[in-house]
């Protein structure tokens, strides 16, 4: 079945440094949809960005990700971390005809001053 792997459970960064959260996936289908959700403490998880287009950069709120089907990856990046970026980030996968996501285990990003 489909799976999503987020290799880092916790990423601790100093403010101003670049962010990269890893996401790789496995699926037998050729047109997956990939999502990044962000969960701030005491809030609801919400969509950060999504893509189904190979090799196209998607951006939102200073974050960006590019779906690379050749490497089955959808890494989340930001040029400069801010304290307010501290949150739990989930990568998720869905496929045509499948109405439930497969979530990764999540990566907690902690940004320190």
């Amino acid at each position: 079945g489909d799976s999503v792997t987020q290799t880092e459970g916790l990423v601790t960064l100093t403010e101003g440094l670049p962010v990269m959260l890893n996401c790789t996936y496995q699926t037998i289908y050729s047109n997956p949809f990939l999502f990044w959700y962000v969960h701030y403490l005491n809030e609801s998880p919400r969509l950060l960005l999504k893509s189904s287009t190979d090799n196209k950069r998607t951006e939102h709120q200073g974050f960006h990700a590019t779906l690379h089907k050749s490497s089955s990856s959808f890494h989340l990046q930001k040029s400069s971390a801010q304290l307010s970026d501290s949150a739990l980030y989930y990568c998720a996968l869905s496929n045509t005809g499948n109405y439930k996501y497969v979530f990764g285990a999540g990566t907690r990003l902690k940004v320190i001053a």
Partner: protein
Amino acid sequence: EAAVTQSPRNKVTVTGGNVTLSCRQTNSHNYMYWYRQDTGHGLRLIHYSYGAGNLQIGDVPDGYKATRTTQEDFFLLLELASPSQTSLYFCASSEGSSNSDYTFGSGTRLLVI
């Protein structure tokens, strides 16, 4: 504004107790989902539904029942609660297409003592 509302926000029950978690969505979405969130495991799907009267089994259904009484309302039932069910529970809704966003509720924190 479209929303997913969960109640209660917090719940404490004893082992063997009976608990019902409620979720209501005003998004006119077909699909509703119940997840539990645990450190190291991320979001795990318990049950989901694509309409009133429908129920689909998720990935971690043991010990949980669910019922979708209307388009808007989806309930999660723990009939013999156990400490292993201590968790943060999220309800979500979506339109049900492969690239649909999820709208999450604010979560219910359950403690089983």
